[in-house]
């Protein structure tokens, strides 16, 4: 069963991936990054642009919709920035940070969202990567999330590479991995949840990684806590955890 703290850890650490003045984007099936963008807007002092797959620009709804494609993400927008427009923005390299989910992730931040088992005769047909294969190589930075942190989700070898590219961050309920997206390098453990430790992370991770730089994840600030509480969206976030990939 997912715990509230799992979802909250994911949301806060996805929000922390956002840098001042960036143009960020969250797509379909992406309630956690949607929540992260709303949290960042409320908890952080810097400005950034939030585009959603629903077509709105800088829409931070009070009540999070169940769907990250919901027209609630159009409320009050001054412009409709539709799919072709934000895809082009991404492919010309002007979408600074893209949030993407995955069923499986490897040490290079590549993802499998296509199939478990042979692609042509899958044991489990997964949803597909959306725009990930196009976006991941062109976006300056990609932040991944995976709500299940186990050796079958964080793997040494993907069963299918749906997308590969400039992954900078991977957030799970227990840890934050990072890599330089400009280099062909493996993740290192950047930080871990305060109720775990690097050895425990190693044990539940299917790929090997360097942990020398790892520190406990900075505690949630009061403003982050307040923003999370204001969202009152745990039902949504909980829903997202077990169902999004069909793995459980």
């Amino acid at each position, binding site marked *: 069963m997912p715990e509230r703290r799992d979802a909250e850890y994911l949301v806060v650490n996805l929000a922390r991936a956002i840098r001042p003045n960036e143009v960020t984007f969250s797509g379909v099936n992406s309630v956690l990054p949607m929540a992260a963008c709303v949290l960042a807007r409320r908890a952080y002092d810097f400005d950034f642009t939030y585009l959603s797959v629903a077509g709105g620009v800088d829409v931070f709804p009070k009540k999070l919709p169940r769907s990250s494609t*919901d027209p609630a993400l159009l409320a009050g927008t001054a412009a409709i920035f539709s799919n072709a427009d934000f895809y082009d923005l991404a*492919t010309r390299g002007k979408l600074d940070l893209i949030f993407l989910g995955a069923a499986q992730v490897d040490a290079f931040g590549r993802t499998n969202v296509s199939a478990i088992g042979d692609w042509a005769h899958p044991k489990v047909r997964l949803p597909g990567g959306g725009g990930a294969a196009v976006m991941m190589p062109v976006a300056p930075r990609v932040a991944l999330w995976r709500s299940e942190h186990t050796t079958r989700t964080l793997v040494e070898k993907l069963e299918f590479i749906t997308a590969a590219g400039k992954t900078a961050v991977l957030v799970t309920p227990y840890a934050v991995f990072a890599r330089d997206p400009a280099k062909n390098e493996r993740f290192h453990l950047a930080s871990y949840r305060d109720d775990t430790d690097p050895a425990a992370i190693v044990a539940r991770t299917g790929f090997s990684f360097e942990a020398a730089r790892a520190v406990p994840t900075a505690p949630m600030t009061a403003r982050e806590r307040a923003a999370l509480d204001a969202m009152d969206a745990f039902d949504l976030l909980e829903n997202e955890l077990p169902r999004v990939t069909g793995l459980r």
Partner: protein
Amino acid sequence: MANKIVSLAEMARSIPDGSSIGFGGSFLHRAPFALVRELVRRGARGLEVIKSSPGYDIDLLARAHAVSRAKAGIVAIEGGLGLAPSYRRAVEDGELQLEEHSCMTIVAGMRAAAAGVPFAPVAGVFGSDLLALNHWKTVADPYGSGKETVVVPAISPDVAVIHANEADANGDARVYGSPPWDRELTRAAKRVFVTAERLVSSAQLAQQPELTLLPGFMVEAVAIVPRGAWPGSLHPDYDVDYAAVEAYLEPGDAALARHLAAAPEARVFSRA
């Protein structure tokens, strides 16, 4: 000006078995779901679904064994309701041949069809197994940058169906909010159909012609279908009916029959 108004049943009948169909909208939003149900009611077979992000639509067609091929980038019910179970079963059973895309690769293919060229370049993709899986080709920049670029073949669905907020009898269709990919789809398809919430006069559309996504001369037929995107949303007219989506997801033929009978068009229209 032609009167292109037809019933939903007539529209569904005019789409032959085996057609490739591009549906408008995305996941649970702004999609011509009433027409999808009508295809099920008429017992359609062998359809191809072409859509970056289908969900309820492809799942319903798979549940009714009406779809045998698909081009899609991501398939899910969404809204916290997880994968599309009938679609998943159809793919896993080999009943549905999937051509897996990356959303924008479908749109690039549609852009090529819309512009009358056989292929379109698309950024990214390198590193993905989709490149080899789909036998996509790469082209070296002939202008000397040395950059290799993936090109995808043109995609021209036999039929496009979008759901508009308003349409006139000529087929001019107004859309509020984000059209997702409806613009590209209607330019790429060989035949274009519109379902619309409301019939309006051309003069009403002329008050703000910039809001007309699709000019009528490109449209073959229009069906006026109030709540035609149900159980999905249509901005700004109505939200997702999650209870209905959850009821749809109950397994079994009885649940499916109840769902089809509960649809707005089944309760409002006499069947033509």
